[in-house]
C-alpha cells in the first residue's frame, strides 16, 4: 500500500498531475451527484419542440428530442466512468495475473502465453470487439464491461512480465528462493508489491483509452444502448442534426476530451513518480 500512496502523493505535487487529478475529481463528483440535481435525462422526449441552442434554461442546449444536454452529459459521465473503471480493473487484474505467472515461471508457459499475447495484439482491439458485438442484439452493460475488460489485458501482461523478469534477479527474491519460499509466496509477497507502481500508471492511462473505446463503440451503435445516455451515443445522435444543432455533438465530445486529458495528465505525473527516467 505504501508505494501506491507515495506515488499518488508525488503525482499530486506535480503541477500537471494536480490539474488532471482535480478535473477528474470534479468529473467524478458531478457524475455521482449531478443526476440528482439536474432534470431527468430520460424525461419525455419532445420531438415537436426540437433542439434549442445553449441558453438560460439549458446551458448546453437541447438535442433534437428536446432533452437537456447538460444533464445527459452528466449522466453519461456516470456511465462512461463506471464502465471505464470496472473494465480497467478487470484488465489490470488479468494482465497482472498473466504477467506475474508468465514472467516468474518462464519456460513453456511463458512462451505459450506470450505467443498468445502477440497474436492478440495483432488484431486491433476494436475489431475484436466488433466481431463479438456485431451479432448481439442489445448488449447488456455488464457484458460490455466484461468484454472490454477481457480485451485489454494483453499489453499490460507484457509490461508486468518485463518488471517481473527484472525483479526476479534482485537479491531479495533470490534470497527468498534460497530460503525455500513457495512460489506463490514469492509472487504475492515480493513481486506483486513492486509491480503495483507501473500497474497503477498503466491503469490510469487505460481509463482514458477505455473511455475513448466505449465512446467509439457507442458511436457505432454497439456500446451503451439508448435510452441510456452515453457520450458516444450522443455524438452519434448529433450526426443527424449536425447542420442545425452542432452543439448537440460538441459538448459530449468536449466532456470526453476533458476527462481523457485529465486521466492522461495524472497518468503521466504518476509515471514520472514511479519511474523518473526521461521527461
Amino acid at each position, binding site marked *: 500500500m505504501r508505494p501506491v500512496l507515495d506515488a499518488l502523493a508525488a503525482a499530486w505535487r506535480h503541477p500537471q498531475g494536480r490539474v488532471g487529478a482535480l478535473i477528474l475529481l470534479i468529473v467524478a463528483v458531478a457524475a455521482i451527484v449531478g443526476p440528482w440535481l439536474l432534470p431527468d435525462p430520460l424525461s419525455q422526449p419532445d420531438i415537436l419542440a426540437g433542439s434549442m441552442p445553449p441558453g438560460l434554461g439549458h446551458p448546453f442546449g437541447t438535442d433534437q428530442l428536446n432533452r437537456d444536454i447538460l444533464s445527459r452529459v452528466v449522466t453519461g459521465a456516470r456511465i462512461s466512468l463506471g464502465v471505464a473503471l470496472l473494465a480497467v480493473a478487470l484488465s489490470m487484474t488479468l494482465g497482472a495475473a498473466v504477467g506475474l505467472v508468465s514472467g516468474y515461471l518462464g519456460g513453456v508457459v511463458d512462451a505459450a502465453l506470450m505467443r498468445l499475447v502477440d497474436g492478440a495484439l495483432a488484431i486491433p482491439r476494436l475489431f475484436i470487439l466488433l466481431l463479438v458485438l456485431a451479432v448481439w442484439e442489445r448488449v447488456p452493460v455488464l457484458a460490455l464491461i466484461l468484454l472490454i475488460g477481457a480485451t485489454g489485458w494483453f499489453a499490460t501482461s507484457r509490461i508486468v512480465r518485463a518488471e517481473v523478469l527484472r525483479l526476479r534477479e534482485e537479491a531479495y527474491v533470490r534470497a527468498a528462493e534460497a530460503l525455500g519460499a513457495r512460489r506463490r509466496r514469492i509472487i504475492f509477497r515480493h513481486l506483486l508489491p513492486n509491480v503495483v507502481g507501473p500497474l497503477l500508471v498503466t491503469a490510469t492511462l487505460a481509463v482514458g483509452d477505455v473511455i475513448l473505446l466505449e465512446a467509439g463503440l457507442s458511436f457505432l451503435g454497439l456500446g451503451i444502448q439508448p435510452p441510456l445516455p452515453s457520450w458516444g451515443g450522443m455524438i452519434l445522435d448529433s450526426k443527424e442534426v449536425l447542420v442545425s444543432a452542432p452543439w448537440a455533438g460538441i459538448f459530449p465530445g468536449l466532456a470526453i476530451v476533458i476527462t481523457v486529458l485529465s486521466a492522461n495528465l495524472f497518468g503521466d505525473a504518476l509515471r514520472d513518480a514511479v519511474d523518473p527516467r*526521461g521527461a
Partner: protein
Amino acid sequence: MSGWVLRRALQAAVTFLVALAILFVLMRAAPGDPLLRLGGDRPISPKEIAVLRARYGLDQPVGRQLTAFVQGLVHGDLGVSIEYGRPVTALLTERLPATLLLGGSVLLLNFTVGLWLGVRQAVRRGRREDRWLTTLSLAGYAMPSFWLGLVLAWLVGIHWRLLPAAGMQDPLLSSDAGWGVRAVDVLSHLVLPVLTLSVVSIAATMRHQRSAMLEVLRLPYILTARAKGLPERDITWRHAWRNALFPVITLFGLWLPILVTGSVFVEAVFAWPGLGSLAAGAVGNRDYPLLMGTSLLVAALVVASGFATDIAYALLDPRVRLA
C-alpha cells in the same frame, strides 16, 4: 544477420497464425446467430435458414469448418459478403486503395511534421514553445477521432464551406474531366479525413520523438560532437536524431493498430470509401464474413508492418546489422 531475419519472419508467421486462430474462435464463440440478422425486418423461415446455413457452411462440424476456412484462406477465398452478395476478397481489394491513400498520407505527415516537432521540442526543452506543444499534443491525444471529424466537417465543410466533407470524389464531376482536375478533387476530399487522423497520431508521435531525443541528447557522444566544434544543426540532426529514430521506428509497428482503428471512425464520418467504412458498415449490417475478412486483412497488415519495422531497425543500426 540473415539468420536473424529468418527467425523474425518465422515469429511473424506464428503471430499471424495465432491471430487467425483467435479470430476463428471469436467467430464461432460469438453469441447470437449471424444468420438471424440477415432477414432484417423480413422474417426468415426455418427452411431459408437451413439453405443459408448450408451455403455458408455453418452446418458442418467445427473441425471441418476450420479446415474449410484455412483452405479458403490459402486460395484467397474469404467467403461471400452477406450484405453485398459479392466475394469478400473482391470487396477488400476494391476498398484497400482508398485506405492506403488515407493511411499513407497520415503516415507521411507523422514522419515529417510529427518527428520534426518532436525534435524541436526536445532541443528547446522547457521553453514556452515546448510547453505549449506538450499541452496541445496531450489534448490532441485525448480527442475521439469521430468527434473531431464531425467538428471539422461541420466547421470547415458546412459552416465555412471551404472543403468537401464527404466521400472521395465529387459525384457531380463530369466524366470527361482531365486527370489533373480529378487529382485535385480527390486531394480536396482527402484534407479533412487526413487532418482528423493526423491530429491524434501526430500528438503521440511528437511525444515519443521528444522523449527519445531527450534521452539521446544526454549521452556522452553528443558532448564529443560538440567539443569537436560541429555546428549545432549537425549535432541535432546527424548525431542525435539518427539515434533517437530507433524508438520511434519500433513504435510505428505498435502504432498501426491504432491508426487502423482510427480510420474505421474517420472513414465512417467522412464517408471515405475505404476498408474502415467497409468495416463500420459491416457492423451495422451484421455482415459477419465481411467483418471477419477485414479483421484478417488488418491482422496481416499489422504483423507485416511489425516485421518491416524490425527489418528497418536492423538496417539502420550497425550494431545489429554487423553482429
